[in-house]
């Protein structure tokens, strides 16, 4: 298996417990969590500070969707995937081709989803 690139990851997840899990999983996959935020405003600030290689976005962040943030990432060319408790339905048309992780997910699920962002093989 080829050496996987170490990705600098932005994690947007509003529940601390779950954030901990995903952070651990990302680290287990050899990536670096450069920011883990529970609020969209914080996520916005994180992008402005440093450009991540990948973003893992909870769909519902403290009652708001992360779609606008996702579009912003898309316009910046930053790959991202969604993690959601809603399943893969409910994504707007322009974001439907993005990888979706249905919570709860396994380490393998996360790895595959990252691969599907196109970043893993980059």
């Amino acid at each position: 298996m080829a050496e996987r690139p170490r990705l600098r990851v932005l994690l947007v997840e509003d529940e601390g417990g779950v954030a901990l899990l995903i952070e651990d999983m990302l680290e287990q996959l050899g990536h670096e969590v450069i920011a883990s935020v529970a609020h969209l405003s914080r996520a916005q600030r994180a992008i402005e500070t440093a450009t991540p290689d990948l973003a893992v976005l909870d769909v519902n962040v403290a009652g708001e969707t992360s779609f606008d943030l996702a579009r912003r990432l898309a316009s910046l060319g930053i790959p991202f995937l969604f993690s959601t408790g809603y399943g893969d339905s409910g994504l707007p048309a322009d974001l439907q081709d993005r990888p979706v992780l249905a919570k709860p997910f396994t380490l393998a699920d996360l790895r595959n989803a990252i691969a599907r962002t196109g970043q893993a093989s980059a």
Partner: protein
Amino acid sequence: MSSVPTSFADRALSEYDALVAAAPSVLEAIPGAVYLCDAEGWLVRWNAEAVTLWGRDPEPGDRKERFCGSHKLRLVDGTPLAHQDCPMADAVRLGSSTRNAEVVIERPDGSRITALVNIRPLRDRDGRIQGAINCFQDISAHKALQADILRKNADLEDFFENSAVGLHIVSKDGTILRANRAELDLLGYTAEEYIGRHIADFHVDRPVIDDILHRLSCGDGLDRYPARLRAKDGSIRHVQITSNSRFEDGAFVNTRCFTLDVTDLNQALEARRESDRRLAATYEAASAGIAEVDETGRYVRVNDALCAILGRSREEVLALDLIAVTHPDDRAEEAERYRRQRCGELPAYRAEKRTIRPDGTIVSLEVSSSSVLDEAGRFRYGVRVMQDVTERKRMQEQIRRHAERLHELLDALPAAIYTTDADGRITFYNRAAVELAGREPELGSDQWCVTWKLYWPDGTPMPHDQCPMATALRENRPVRGGEAIAERPDGRRIPFVPYPTPLRDEDGKLIGAINMLVDISDRKEAEARQKVLIDELNHRVKNTLATVQSLALQTVKHATDLRDFATTFEARIVALARAHDLLTKRSWMSAPLDMLLHDVIAPYSQRGERLQAGGPALELNPRAALSLTMVLTELATNAAKYGALSVPSGTLSVTWTLSSGSDPALEMDWIERGGPQVGAPTRRGFGTRLIQRCIERDLDGELDLRFEAQGVRCRIRVPLSLCTHG
């Protein structure tokens, strides 16, 4: 023959010779015109009267004139007659006499006279024609008279024959002597079939003709004596005979009868009588009251029905006028109407009024009043037809009240209801319809629906003429199962289910439609809410499972053994479940902080005195409730394992306040006392990480966690905006 001596007689002159020899005075003495021609026709003698009649005087001795001294001669019918062809010429040449012949003499001046001519040839003893004598006289006046008589006669004949009135003459014994064209035409006989028969043969009624003949024979005239004659075709002609008799010398000669055919007149009269009879019968049999009133309004003629309607006898009614029988409240109006009709302002009118019967009952009448005018257009009398409409009015009133009640009922119904005519124009709407539409529809102008704008359930605009109501009207059937969205002028959109149903009259003809619009906003909202709830539940379950997954993995990572794992994991899961319970009780809207705290601490504080807790009531939002549950659980587990709750002497105080100001926040103090000596943990455990995450990261708060010697002290500050709904 030789001349021989003659006797006196022999020697007597012939008539011719005597006349020639006579003195002129002899001819002049003859009363009338006279002239003499010789054997060859030459004029030899004539008198002055002849000159007068001829209008000329022939030259004496001149032998130029033969046969006649006139200028010209004509026959009576006007054809020219040459002198050599005249009767005098015949007398001289042939010896013929002429008696009372008539010729026309034309004078040189052109005037003509008719002459009566008498000619005799004159012979000698031996019979030889010696000449002729002509005596003539002017009979022009006589002729003119005769022509006049003839003309008069002809006129009379013409009058008789061509008179438009039938005429016949009957002899003494009753035989028809003459009959004119009109009479023959009247009965259809030819003259041969009629004339010569007895007049009685043609009469239908024998006594009548006997009486007629008797009267006439007595000299009584008949003046328009009615009789019936039988025509040839068998039909009976009604005639009036005017006749008188002709008597000569006191003796009855014949009768002259004028026969006037009055059959048609009789038929017209009969028809009119029939019509009158029928009218009278109708008048009496009519169920409507009929009256004739004079110009003062007084009843002149009334039928039984009218008396019945007014509840009075005919005598009573005839003593009253139309105002007197009118209800006092209606009198002024009625009087004014009748006045206008009488003076011609109204040719007729129809009105409703009331009357009071003598027994006090009030009757509603419908009156149709019209005028009968004379030829000059002046008012003669009024004809009034009256109908008792009391019952009809009562029914109408009842129907009106029903309709009113129905409208009130419809108005009171909580469902939006409106009706339209067959063209879809709004004819009625209730209050609920106004509330649903958010506007007041315009009656008779708005079409198809009371709403302002319509949309299909998917949000595309629905033109009003394609709405379910329009379909129901167009296809004449109820439309069910549809849904639409109404937009009110204020922008609010209301989903509804319409129930358009056609309305038909007794004959099944479409007269409109009724529609009920059922507002399904509540249902739609409930459905939406339910979907949100299910989505939310799914999200929550999945997130919870993710949290459990995280807790399990983290607990495994830090557990000293399986037992430690079981205890810690169980505590964490149970606390999470308690928080869920609290939130579920409030439909995942909120959880009160004090109860949440109680549920977390309860398992570790069997005796309540070890716990001091207090602070203002605060409803936490679900996120904050779960985060704080996890924080408090970690603190409690730690206290139970290593801190104040691990020894009986330990106490725990959890207090909180709500700071006010520009940045209001929940400030909570967790203070443990009386527990074992506490040392700072050698490495940051999962619990600490989790607490930090929940407060600082998730709730954007501040955490001050100290492991002091006296016990753990934790100070938490979380913005109220993040932990409550406010």
